[in-house]
C-alpha cells in the first residue's frame, strides 16, 4: 500500500466536460487496490514544488475561464516540466491539453502563450469537431490498446516535427481532423482531446497512470490485480460503435 498525491490544476475553472469523472476513477481504482489517494487542488496563487505530486490532472474549460487562468498556467510550465522529468505523470484533457502546448492562436490571430510542456501548438478553426472518437495506442511497446471518448473542439492542434501522438485515430477527427493522429505523449505526460469523461470507459489508461504515479512514489512499478470491469467494457464498446457510426463527420 502506498500513498499517491494528485495535483488537480484549476479544478474551479477547468471542469467543463465532467473532469471529476476522471478524478473519481483515479480515486476508486486506487482505493480498490488499497492505495491511498489524495487530490490537492492547484489554483491561482499556488506553487508547484516538483516531487510533491505523483500525478497531475488538468481538464478543459470554456473560453472565458481558460483565458482567466492562462497566465497562471504559463507560470506553472517550468516546475511542471521539472516534476515530470523527475518521474511524475500527467493527464491533460481538451482545453488543458491545448494550454500545455506552446501557444494557442485564436480567430483574430492573437496568440495566447501556453506552458510549453507539449511540443505542439493549436490554431482556432472555423468548424467544431464534435463526436465520438476511437484511438489505438501503444504506450508500452508491443501492447496495443484502444481509447474511446468524445471530442468537441474548434482548435486544430499541430504536433512539432518528431513529437509523438497519443494514438492513431481509428474513427473520429483527432488533433486536426486530417493527420490521422490524436493527442500527444511526452514521456509520462499525456495530452488528449478525449473527454466523455475519458477514464471510466478506458480503465486501462487510469491504471497505467496510477502505476506511473506509484512508481514515482516508491521507486518501483506495482503489479495490479485486474478488477471486474464489465460496465467499463460495455461503455467503451458503445462509444466505439458510435465513433465508427458517426464520428469524424461535421
Amino acid at each position, binding site marked *: 500500500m502506498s500513498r499517491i498525491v494528485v495535483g488537480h490544476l484549476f479544478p*474551479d475553472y477547468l*471542469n*467543463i*466536460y*465532467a473532469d*471529476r*469523472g476522471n478524478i*473519481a*476513477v483515479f480515486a*476508486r481504482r486506487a482505493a480498490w487496490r488499497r492505495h491511498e489517494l489524495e487530490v490537492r487542488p492547484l489554483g491561482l496563487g499556488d506553487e508547484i514544488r516538483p516531487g510533491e505530486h505523483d500525478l497531475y490532472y488538468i481538464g478543459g474549460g*470554456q*473560453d*472565458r*475561464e481558460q483565458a*482567466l487562468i492562462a497566465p497562471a498556467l504559463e507560470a506553472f510550465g517550468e516546475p511542471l516540466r521539472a516534476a515530470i522529468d523527475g518521474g511524475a505523470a500527467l493527464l491533460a484533457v481538451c482545453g488543458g491539453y491545448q494550454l500545455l502546448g506552446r501557444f494557442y492562436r485564436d480567430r483574430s490571430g492573437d496568440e495566447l502563450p501556453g506552458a510549453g510542456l507539449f511540443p505542439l501548438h493549436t490554431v482556432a478553426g472555423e468548424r*467544431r469537431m*464534435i*463526436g*465520438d472518437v476511437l484511438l489505438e495506442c501503444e504506450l508500452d511497446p508491443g501492447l496495443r490498446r484502444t481509447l474511446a471518448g*468524445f471530442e*468537441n473542439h474548434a482548435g486544430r492542434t499541430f504536433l512539432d516535427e518528431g513529437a509523438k501522438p497519443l494514438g492513431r485515430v481509428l474513427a473520429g477527427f483527432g488533433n486536426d481532423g486530417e493527420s490521422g493522429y490524436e493527442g500527444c505523449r511526452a514521456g509520462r505526460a499525456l495530452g488528449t482531446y478525449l*473527454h*466523455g*469523461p475519458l477514464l*471510466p*470507459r478506458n480503465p486501462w489508461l487510469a491504471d497505467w497512470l496510477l502505476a506511473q504515479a506509484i512508481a514515482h512514489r516508491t521507486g518501483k512499478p506495482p503489479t495490479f490485480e485486474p478488477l*471486474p470491469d*464489465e*460496465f*467499463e467494457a*460495455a*461503455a467503451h464498446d*458503445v*462509444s466505439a460503435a*458510435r465513433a465508427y457510426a*458517426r464520428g469524424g463527420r461535421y
Partner: protein
Amino acid sequence: MPLSAEVLFARAAGRLSRLAGTGGGTTVPGKLLWKLDPGAVDRLAARLPQGSALISATNGKTTTSAMVARILSPSLRLAHNRAGANLVSGVASALLSASGAELGLFEVDEAALPEVARRLRPRALCLGNLFRDQLDRYGELELVAERWRAAVVDLPVDAQLVVNGDDPQVGDLNATRPRIVFGVDDPRHSSEELPHAADSKWCVRCGTPYAYAAVYIGHLGDYRCPACGHTRPPLDLSAREIQLNGLESVSFSLETPEGARRVELAVPGLYNVYNALAAASLARALGFRLDEVVAGLEGFSAAFGRFERIALGDRTLLVLLIKNPAGANEVVRTLVAAGAPKLLLVALNDELADGRDVSWIWDVDFEPLLGGLERLVATGERAAELALRFKYAGLPSESIDVVPELDAALDHGLELTAAGSELVALATYTAMLALRDLVARRGFVRPYWEEAAA
C-alpha cells in the same frame, strides 16, 4: 402558393404523419410550411390580434409556458407549442394548428431565440436562466448569452422584457431598458455552497468571483461582485416564505407591486418556484391581474413529461425529465428532500435531442441519492455509462442492473416495485418520450399529440 393554400397543405401533412404512425406530427406541418415559404411564419404570427409572448431558458421553458397558458386560457384563445417543439418549425406548427387564436404563447429553444424573435416581433419576452447544456449542440454558455444579448437589442421598442434577476448573465441583459425582474428572496433555502458544476461564478462585468448572500439553484441567487460592485438588480416580483412539501407541492408568498399573495403549487421543488415566478411576471407583463395569476398557478398540475404521475394498474410511475446538470441536480434535491427512493430507474439516451455527448451525467450530483438507494435499473442507449456513473459514485456493482432496452427495463423496474407503491424514473428527453409511448401503448396515458390538441 397563397398563404391559405400553404396552410391547408401543411396541416394535411401533419394529419398524414400521425396516420402513418411516424410520430406526433407536432413539427411536420411547420417544417413543410418552412420549406414552402419561410416568410409564412412571420405573416401567420402577424395575424394574431394580441401578438405573441416568448419564453426561453435552459431549464423550465415547458413548465413555465404551461403555467402561463393556465393563467391566460380562461380569457384568451392561444396558439401554444405545449409539447415542447420549440424550434422555428415547432412554432410554425403551433401557429398552423390554432386557427382563431388570439395570442401566441411559445417556448423557444435558447439557440433559436434570435430568429424566432426576429420573425414573431413579440410583445413580451421572458428569459429564465442559462446553464451549461448540451455543449455538443449549443456550444459554450457564453455563445448562447451573446445570442440572447443580440435578440434583446433587436426587440420591438414597446416589447416587455421579463428577466430572472438571480441569474447574473440574464439579470444583466439590457439593464438600461424598462424590465420586469423576478427572483427568490428567502435565504433560509440557500445552499451551503455553489454546486460542483456552477457556471456563471465569475462577474459578468469584471471576471472576479461573486460573493453570494444566498445560492438557490446552480449559480442562481443573491450575488454581488466584491471588485466592481455588480449586484443582483432590484426584484419587481419575488418569492418569500417558501415551504417545500416533499414530492407533492410547494407554496410561497408571491410579492408583487400589487400586493402579496400566498400561492400553493401542485408541483414540487424550488425550481418550480422559479417557473411560477417567471410565469407570474410574464402574465403581469401581458396585463393580467394578480387574482388571475394566482388562480392559474394554483390550477396548474404538471407539464408534459416534466413531473408526471402515471397509474399503471396497481403501481404508479413517476417520470422526471433530466437533461442537464443544473436541472438534474434540482430533481435529485427534490427527491432526496422527500426521502431518497430505494429503487430508481434512470434512462440515458444520446440522440440529438438528448445531446450526443453524455459527459454531463458526471457533472450531476447524484451522490445524495446513494444514502437510500438499494437498486438502480440503468437503461437507454448509454445505460452502461450511467452504470459507471453510479459505480464510481460508490454504489456497489451488484446493486446495478444494466438493461439497455427500455421496455424490458420498465418491466424489471415494475417487478421490483411493490403493489401500491411508486417507481421513480429519471429520463432524458427522447427516453422520456419513449417511456411515455410505451406506457401509452399499454393503454395508460394518452399519446402526446392528442394531449397537445386537447
